[in-house]
């Protein structure tokens, strides 16, 4: 089971982690050939997610986002990767399932595992955006869009 840090995050620490998660997702999107590099970013991204769990706002934001979009995300993940993933909308449980599913596939089909990690971490990132103040969220989102399209 993933154990998040017990000390709460400061706002600046949380914002920095959201930026760090975004960078790993961007890197994942740009490693189409290099599955080994993709694996490093996926594992680092998972580590960032576990650190973000120390923030109650992130946990709440994920639960709300997941409740609203879980059905769509499940279908998207199934269509893109063929993997059937059931969201619980509890970030700790879903992050653990994300890690175990990723590890199950990375030694079987690394490209599929990369796509799965990218979609899942993007969902977590999208929910975490709502914890940023409006101006910062706009800047981070536009940078993310520019890097992945």
């Amino acid at each position, binding site marked *: 089971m993933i154990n998040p840090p017990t000390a709460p995050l400061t706002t600046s620490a949380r914002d920095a982690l959201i930026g760090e998660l975004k960078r790993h997702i961007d890197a994942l999107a740009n490693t189409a050939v*290099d*599955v080994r590099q993709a*694996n490093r970013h996926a594992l680092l991204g998972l580590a960032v997610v576990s650190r973000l769990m120390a923030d109650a706002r992130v946990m709440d934001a994920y639960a709300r986002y997941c409740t609203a979009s879980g059905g769509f995300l499940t279908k998207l993940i199934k269509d893109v990767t063929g993997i059937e993933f059931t969201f619980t909308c509890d970030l700790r449980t879903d992050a653990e399932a994300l890690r175990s599913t990723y590890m*199950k596939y*990375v030694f079987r089909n690394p490209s*599929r595992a990369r796509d799965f990690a990218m979609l899942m971490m993007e969902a977590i990132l999208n929910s975490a955006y709502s914890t940023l103040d409006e101006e910062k969220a706009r800047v981070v989102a536009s940078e993310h869009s520019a890097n992945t399209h």
Partner: protein
Amino acid sequence: MSTQQTPIDITELLALTGRSRVLTEKVKRCYALVTNPKTFEAIASALRGYDPASGGWFIPHAKHAKQVIQNIIQECVVEPLTMVAEGGGMDGLITLAEYASMLDVDVDVSAVNIQDIIELKLNSCLPQGDEKKPPAYTDLVNATNNCLREIVTKALVTLERAGAVSAIASRRGES
């Protein structure tokens, strides 16, 4: 006898890797081997043998075909990929997993070795026949040729990618 071989050339190989660079000597040699028609003529000859017991030519089954192509697979797939796969822990396993998935072999590479992967692939792409009724000779030769090309070509692509990764990491000062 005509064989249906999947055409591959060096341009295709480079297009698959997405970048142009110097190929290693082993990759070049193996590439030359699998694109040389004489390789397949030799395989076809080796697949047909004289059986003194029956006084005629026998048609071997897929098990024999595996033995015939084993030397090429050992040199062009097992040795180079083992070097890559054993060199980097998790990186090596992921390289091997990419190779297996390219071959459409659905297996967890942390639980098997490269010989197992190739064995699974050969089992799926060679006609099996049985002791009583071997596969048709022409079918066996065609399948052996296409199967060997796929196994070696995808190993070359995997090595190319791994080489590209190392080269880029080196330029970045990451290794």
